[in-house]
């Protein structure tokens, strides 16, 4: 198939998925004027790093009713085997499973797409219910898409070995705008504020005072702000490049910067290769210390709240198998994806050897998607 035909077909079939992303996620999109396409996605995922292994399946299915209503359902599993540096120095290795279910509905009204969703995440010591609403609207001749979303979460935190139980109330506010600047350049600006109220620590983790382990104590509120700017440029009919930057700050005085670059390329009309790189750096929370010199009101020794940076590099290979196999599918793709991640901590000590902690992670994903 000629490149022009491929692009024309893609244009026809991809307007709908583009619209859905905007609806559910306030993501940067091209158009919100059509329903998402009916599609099934399946994935097997694997994470291995820092003594933690997480594997499991994920499924997503979408079905439309008429030209204005679309529904979606999600299923996701994390099977966790954990012997992380936190666990081996203050607790016992454990295994558990987290299961997440979600449902959503989208309603197309003119150039606006209105969405609502519900998700439940359940594991032995944590349950989360999340309710979300969103709307996206095309304006300015379809060159600009404005999206807003809100979600509320009710979480229950517990311990498996005691009767401890507490809660978290969470509110997320998103505002996104995407803008077509040229026939080859799409840009987006996203903002998200998150407020949390409740038990925000890990009930198992300990802080240290002069080397002695004591229970952590976190503030019961946290408000964060994140702003991200991104751009995708079509370098040629076969190649695109994308980049993004995110700034993050919160009331715990964590400041973080995230940089991402990616490159996508048609090897031929049936195969797409992606490569990507990411760099992340953050300052520690105001109440974090590797080893406190005395007792404070708030004390944390969570390495996610410490000063550290991480970098990652990865790639994906996608095969449009509907072009090769006589399966009767209109379109189907299989993708293999791998990412390497390196974490380097500036003020978190591995208590086993007294050295600053660092570790490598490997993320593998096998993904299948078909449209019907």
């Amino acid at each position, binding site marked *: 198939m000629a490149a022009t035909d491929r692009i024309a077909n893609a244009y026809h079939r991809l307007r709908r998925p*583009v619209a859905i992303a905007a609806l559910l996620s306030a993501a940067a999109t091209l158009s919100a004027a059509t329903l998402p396409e009916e599609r099934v996605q399946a994935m097997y995922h694997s994470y291995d790093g820092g003594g933690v292994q997480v594997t499991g399946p994920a499924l997503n299915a979408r079905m439309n009713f008429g030209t204005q209503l679309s529904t979606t359902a999600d299923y996701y599993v994390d099977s966790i085997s954990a012997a992380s540096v936190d666990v081996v120095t203050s607790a016992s290795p454990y295994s558990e499973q987290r299961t997440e279910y979600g449902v959503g509905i989208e309603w197309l009204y003119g150039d606006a797409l209105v969405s609502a969703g519900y998700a439940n995440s359940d594991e032995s010591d944590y349950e989360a*219910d999340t309710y979300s609403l969103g709307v996206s609207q095309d304006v300015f001749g379809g*060159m600009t898409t404005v999206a807003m979303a*809100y979600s509320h979460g009710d979480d229950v935190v517990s311990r498996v070995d005691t009767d401890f139980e507490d809660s978290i109330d969470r509110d997320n506010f*998103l505002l996104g705008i995407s803008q077509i600047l040229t026939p*080859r350049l799409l840009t987006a600006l996203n*903002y998200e504020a998150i407020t949390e109220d409740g038990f925000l620590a890990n009930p198992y983790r300990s802080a240290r005072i002069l080397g002695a382990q004591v229970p952590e104590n976190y503030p019961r509120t946290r408000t964060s702000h994140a702003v991200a700017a991104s751009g995708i440029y079509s370098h040629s009919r076969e190649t*695109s490049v994308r980049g993004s930057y995110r700034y993050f700050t919160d009331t715990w005085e964590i400041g973080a910067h995230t940089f991402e670059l990616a490159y996508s390329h048609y090897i031929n009309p049936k195969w797409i290769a992606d490569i990507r790189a990411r760099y992340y750096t953050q300052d520690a929370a105001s109440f974090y210390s590797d080893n406190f010199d005395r007792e404070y009101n708030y004390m944390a020794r969570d390495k*996610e709240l410490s000063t550290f940076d991480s970098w990652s590099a990865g790639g994906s290979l996608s095969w449009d198998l509907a072009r090769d196999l006589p399966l009767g599918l209109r379109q189907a793709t299989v993708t293999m994806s791998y*990412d390497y991640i390196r974490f380097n901590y500036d003020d978190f000590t591995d208590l086993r050897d007294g050295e600053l902690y660092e570790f490598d992670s490997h993320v593998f994903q096998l993904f299948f998607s078909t449209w019907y």
Partner: protein
Amino acid sequence: MRIALLLAGLLAFTGCSSVEPWVMPYEREALADPIMLTSRMPLVDRHRQHVFEVREGARGASGLGVGGGCGCN
């Protein structure tokens, strides 16, 4: 000073209203190609986002949607 700022704002506003879309729908073929999508594989991208968020202090504004809570520490 305030009047000058007000006039500048009004001029900017009226200027915007006269700007026509400069990329017509028939010029957006390149933008609609799969490799130009914000997320070509939503399940894959959401999982990768989840891997980072549970190991970093920052969260949000990923362009992939509102996340739910989990005890993924």
